[in-house]
């Protein structure tokens, strides 16, 4: 099995040398294999988001190595890493450009590599193809190709972010509590779309969630981060046999 992501001896310390010094990631080691769908859980401040941000490159690792598809990217920019990965943020406003139209957002998301060139970005012939893509979301967005994204609802924006994140055929998909800002019903719908997409496109995925039930229900692997370390890492049958009580007990 190919390793999509290898995190080796990762360290992250905030405010070193001050009274507020906090060692957030303590020698984290993690291997993500092709096809993994990992739910990442943990307390607030345990380091889940820091881990995801360090993998995505918005935070630099203080020590250790991050290998993406067999090469070290730990010193590379967010833009470079995005050639291999996509990300959906917690805040629906973060993942889309509100002043741009739905179509412009989709075009931006499609190619993470050739972002600066003098070719027309919008071609008339591509419209049906984008409409087909939007239809898969079942939210009626196919009729709003030319609408600025800021006029969409939170749920629509998040579903769009999710679709956008899959367009560049990423080797790794990062979901950062992407349903947390939505109401229960919408959150449920977006989670279902997520699962469908991940299954259909065989996306290797890391999903941070605070919902124990989602963590248990979705994915083939569950990782629990506690106090900057990985406390639990189960997959397959072992994961399926896990229940809420056991998980809560592990939190203690």
């Amino acid at each position: 099995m190919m390793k999509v992501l290898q995190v080796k001896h990762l360290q992250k310390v905030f405010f070193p040398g001050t009274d507020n010094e906090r060692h957030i990631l303590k020698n984290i080691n993690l291997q993500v294999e092709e096809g993994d769908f990992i739910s990442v859980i943990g307390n607030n401040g345990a380091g889940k988001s820091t881990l995801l941000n360090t993998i995505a490159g918005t935070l630099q690792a203080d020590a250790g190595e991050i290998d993406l598809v067999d090469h070290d990217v730990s010193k590379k920019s967010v833009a470079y890493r995005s050639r291999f990965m996509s990300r959906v943020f917690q805040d629906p406003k973060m993942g889309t450009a509100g002043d741009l139209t739905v179509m412009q957002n989709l075009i931006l998301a499609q190619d993470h590599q050739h972002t600066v060139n003098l070719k027309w970005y919008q071609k008339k012939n591509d419209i049906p193809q984008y409409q087909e893509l939007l239809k898969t979301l079942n939210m009626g967005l196919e009729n709003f190709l030319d609408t600025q994204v800021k006029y969409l609802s939170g749920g629509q924006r998040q579903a769009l972010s999710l679709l956008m994140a899959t367009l560049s055929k990423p080797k790794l998909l990062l979901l950062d509590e992407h349903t947390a800002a939505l109401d229960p019903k919408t959150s449920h719908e977006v989670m279902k779309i997520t699962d469908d997409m991940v299954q259909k496109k065989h996306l290797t995925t890391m999903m941070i969630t605070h919902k124990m039930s989602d963590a248990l229900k979705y994915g083939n692997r569950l990782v629990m981060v506690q106090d900057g370390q990985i406390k639990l890492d189960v997959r397959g049958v072992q994961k399926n046999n896990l229940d809420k009580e056991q998980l809560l007990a592990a939190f203690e």
Partner: protein
Amino acid sequence: MLISSLGQGLLWAPLAIGVFITFRILDIPDLTTEGSFPFGAAIAVSLMLKGQSAITAAVVGFLAGCLAGLVTGILDTKFRIPSLLAGILTMTGLYSINMHIMGKSNVPLLDQKVLTEYLPAGWNLEIQTIILGLIVTVIVVTLLYLMFKTRLGLSLMATGNNKEMSSANGINTDGMIIFGYMISNGFIALSGALIAQSNGYADIGMGIGTIVIGLASVLVGEIFLRGHNILTRLIAMVVGAIVYRLLLTVAMGLGFPPDDLKILSAIILVIVICVPIIQNRIRTKRQLKKYLAQMEEQDDESITSEASTKGLLSRD
């Protein structure tokens, strides 16, 4: 009066467009303007005095502005200096550079051939200015319109709108911001070069207040022409620059001395910032009143009165 403001406005249009790129597309108030405008003028006039053609002078003036933008862009993105301060630093530095280029604080053109003189001599100066202004404006607007239709333009717009999202989608946002600063200040310096040729001199103080003029033109333009189509927005900037010139000419006609034009510019800017906000507030209030009145008609009277007493008594 109308004719002369039209011509002058068109020469100021590249400034409005330059300010639009940083202020509206990148969402950055860039004070480099106050330095790059006289920079373009100083370069153009010096080159012409050295025997270069007016066209070369204008083009080099544009490139000089790009250089000024590059400096501010690097200060902002690579050195992480807040954009407002980065602009002030470049602007301040440019003052000395402009003095070095010009040698003294005011340099007049002698009998050098200016751009308007490339046009048929039979036309009078005001018509020549308008035609020159139109040619330049059409070139600038067309180039920018085409640029915004390319993937480069889309990446630039996305960067200004949402930096996190843009870098997560592979865009080198620092590069885009620097590029934005560069073309913005290029057009501002071009405007400076045109105005210097039109005035017949470059002056060290001609940059003072240009950011206010630029912002006022942007906002005036947006009051007259609204829309999120990029061509409409660019044309709105040209309209803004012309209307703004007209406002100044009217004020001068009313007898304001030239020294008071700066405070007048500032007051105009305050007004054009406040008017849309107040307009919006009044409109919202009126709509709300109408909506609530409709709701009241639909509701049963007893329920509304009950609700209102409850509202009065409740302490939450």
